[in-house]
Every structure is written in C-alpha cells, then in structure tokens.
C-alpha cells in the first residue's frame, strides 16, 4: 500500500463523511440529540481523515501499521453512523417521536443520571441500543403497543457500563465489578473442589465456559434486567415473561462449548423475581413466579442437570443485591406503588389490565395511548 493509495482512500472517507453530513437534517424535532451526535461523529471522521492524509508524521514509513489501524477505525465509525443514525434520521415517523418522548420520561421518572437516548422504530430484530450514538432501535409495530415497552429500560441501562469516563456511571460499574470478583472466586473454588474428588470430566470442562459467560456478558445483561425492575417494577417482569412466551428458547440452557451472550431465561426470571421482592413488590413477585411455572408446564421444560452449577443461586443473589446498591448509588429512584410517574404508571396499568381482562385490553390500550400522547402534543 503506497502513499497515493492511502491518500486516495482517506480522501474517499472524507468525501463520504461530508456527503453524509450534508444528508443529516438540520432540525429533526425531538431527535435533535441524535442529529447532533451524528454531526459530531462525522466531523471527527472528516478531521481524522484529513490528519492521517496530510500530517507529515503519519506518512513516516515506520508508522504505516498504526496509520492503517486508525484508517480502519474511521471506516468502522462511518459504517456505523451511516447504517444506524443517518438511516434513522432520514426515516423519522410519529412512532419515533413518541417513543423518544416516552424513553425520556421513563429516564426522568427514575432519575437516570445520563442523557436519555433517542428511539427509532427501524429495527429488523428486537430492541437494541447503539451506546455510542445513544440510539435505541425497536420494531415498528412494538411502538404501537404498550406491553413490550418496559424493555426500553433494559436498553437504556446499557448506557451505564458503556461509559468510559463519566463518574456518574461509576458506582453502577463498581457494583458490576464486585459481582464479577465473586464470580471469579466462586468458580475458582468450585474448580479446586472438583479437582480434589472424582468429578465428571464434562463438568470440569464446562465450568470455564460458564465463568467466562458470566464475566463477559451475563452479569451485564442481568444488571440491565435488574435496573429495569427497579426503574419500572412489575411491568418489566411481565414483559420478560411475555418475551419468553413469544420467542422460541431453551429456558434452562447451559452452554457446553462456547460462551453465550445472555443467561438462560430461567436464570433471568429468577433474578427478576428476587429483584421485585427486594424492591418491595412481594405480591407481584409471587404472581410472576406462578405465571412462570404455568408457562413451564405448557412448554414441558425442566432444569438441565448442570443448571445450578451454571447459574449458582448465590451469584444470582449477588447480582440482585449489588445492582440494587449500584442503582441507588447513581442517584436513581426505586419505583414504588406510592410513587409512580405517569409513564411508569401507564406501563404497569397496561399489564394489570391485560392480565385482568385480555379481551377488553386492546380497546383500553388504544384509548390509553391516545390520551397519553395527546397530552404530549402527539
């Protein structure tokens, strides 16, 4: 790769970023934060490409490996901005405004310490978040109903571990770190115990997979579940149950060879139920447990032999307790029956109505959504 190749590629990046920058609408009502992040990122790409192309030190023969890595970073960032943010900004619909407004209110009601994300109903999958752009994507039709909206709060919670420098997120990250330290200690001890006796070879081999799954992904996912439990209470538990019903899944899955991104639904449910109890929703926790058991009767699933080794109750308990502490330490307010914001109230009422009389629910939902958004100018 010679200098003219680098020069031409960096010029291309610069031009592509400029074209995209020109395509970002100047004002997008309710989505200005996303437009601003988009402009900021594209500006950084343009400046970065110019630096790598024009500054003499980057042309030095000894630094071409570093230059290539930096160039790849620019391409990566451009791809992400183009495919997520610019695409979302060019297809703004009423649902996007509504969902952005709702997420903002949910964040305010629990006193979330970071800026709330923007929502775009352009997801081809389920709910997800791009933490760098602070953009939640959700399927179009989910924005027209209330029952899955509690899942938005799980996505919002992902912003906390993503923060590299913001001290407002640190107590939550410290709580995560405390749980991870206990995971290490637990699996170290278990492996030492197993080494002393005659234990199944398979179990010894699977333990590192479980330990790494906990450390790399499961703890974060459980913390986001529990954040949502403390922020919007039982509605999140019911939305989780509904998702378990809706998607094909292996409820007690224990990975054997490769790590997985999410803990098994049975482990998540257990954490959610314990979180509800800790937050003072004992009756609702009992009701959710009963509904969960009824679902398992229908699916006919039973725990795998490894389940308790893979998801030790003590580790789930640590996740529940430390996430509760982390949630409060960042200044968030645990939702209670006596102190619900309008949005928290709407989502919990939706679940109460749906469970009490599913037949009448659609009429109520339509009218409740109209009332809610009409008072907010949409």
């Amino acid at each position, binding site marked *: 790769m010679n200098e003219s190749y680098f020069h031409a590629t960096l010029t291309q990046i610069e031009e592509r970023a400029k074209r995209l920058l020109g395509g970002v609408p100047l004002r997008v009502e309710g989505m200005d934060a996303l437009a601003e992040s988009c402009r900021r990122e594209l500006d950084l790409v343009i400046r970065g490409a110019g630096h790598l192309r024009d500054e003499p030190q980057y042309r030095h023969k000894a630094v071409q490996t570093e230059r290539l890595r930096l160039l790849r970073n620019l391409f990566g960032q451009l791809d992400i901005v183009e495919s997520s943010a610019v695409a979302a900004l060019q297809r703004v619909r009423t649902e996007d405004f509504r969902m952005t407004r709702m997420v903002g209110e949910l964040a305010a009601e629990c006193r979330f310490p970071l800026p709330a994300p923007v929502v775009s109903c352009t997801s081809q999958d389920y709910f997800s*978040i791009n933490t760098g752009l602070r953009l939640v994507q959700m399927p179009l039709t989910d924005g027209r109903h209330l029952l899955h909206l509690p899942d938005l709060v799980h996505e919002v919670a992902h912003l906390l571990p993503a923060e590299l420098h913001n001290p407002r997120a640190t107590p939550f990250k410290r709580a995560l770190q405390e749980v991870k330290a206990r995971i290490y200690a637990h699996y170290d001890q278990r492996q030492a115990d197993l080494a002393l006796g005659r234990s199944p070879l398979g179990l010894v081999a699977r333990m590192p997979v479980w330990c*790494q799954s906990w*450390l790399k992904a499961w703890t974060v996912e459980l913390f986001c579940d529990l954040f949502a439990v403390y922020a919007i209470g039982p509605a999140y538990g019911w939305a989780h149950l509904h998702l378990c019903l809706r998607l094909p899944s292996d409820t007690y899955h224990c990975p054997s060879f490769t790590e997985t991104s999410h803990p098994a639904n049975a482990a998540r449910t257990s954490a959610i139920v314990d979180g509800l109890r800790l937050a003072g929703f004992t009756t609702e926790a009992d009701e959710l447990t009963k509904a969960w058991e009824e679902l398992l009767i229908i699916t006919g699933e039973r725990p795998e032999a490894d389940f308790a080794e893979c998801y030790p109750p003590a580790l789930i308990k640590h996740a529940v307790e430390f996430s509760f502490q982390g949630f409060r330490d960042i200044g968030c307010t645990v939702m209670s029956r006596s102190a619900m914001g309008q949005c928290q109230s709407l989502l919990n009422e939706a679940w109460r109505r749906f469970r009490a009389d599913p037949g009448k629910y659609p009429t109520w939902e339509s009218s409740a959504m109209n009332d809610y958004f009409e008072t907010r100018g949409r």
Partner: protein
Amino acid sequence: MNNAGLESSIYDQLRSYSESLNHYLVKLKTEAPAPVFAPPAEVAELIRGLGENVPIEVSVQLLASGMKERGAFPDSTVRRLRLALDACRSAPETVADLERLAQFLGRQQAGAFARLRRMR
C-alpha cells in the same frame, strides 16, 4: 434477543483505546526518544485495567479474558508496561510492548466489529 447493547459498548470502548494507543505510538515512533513514559490517560487506564483481576470496563474484561484464553498476549508484557507506567520511565522494550498491545487490541476490535455488524 440480541446483545447489541453490550457489543456496541465493547466496540466503542475498544475503538477509543485503539485511537489513543495508535496516535501515541505514532508520536513515540516519529519524535525524538524520551526517557519519560507518560501515555495518554486512556492508554494508562487500559494498561492498569489489564493488570487487574477484575477490570471495571466491559471491553478490558474481554481483552483480559482473550489474553488468558489464547495466550495471545502474555502477562509479562502487561507487567512490564505496568512497571514502566508506575516508574514513569520507558524501558527498552516499551515501544515493542505497546505495538504488541495495539495489535492484540486491533484483533479484538475486529471481532467486536464483526459481531456488531452481524446484528444489523
């Protein structure tokens, strides 16, 4: 269910570390050698995080696990960088150690990017 939230957190953090580390390497390799080792805060944070049993950042956790799993990046390199950082003095192998770290970081970043792209 998808894990775009976690993957995008990891990718963003790795990209941020990679930016700082590669710009710093360019500086070290193109300017007159200095005995003082004072990397940007993010690079220092990364080196310290890799030396911890349980790093606080999700991306450093991934890097630390990757180091142990594949032996791709030896503990001894992290220890040397940590010593240089604590002493604020470059050792003869500091630049080579940082280059190895940048290479390892680049590989992990490529994996995170591929996982993130698959989700969209």
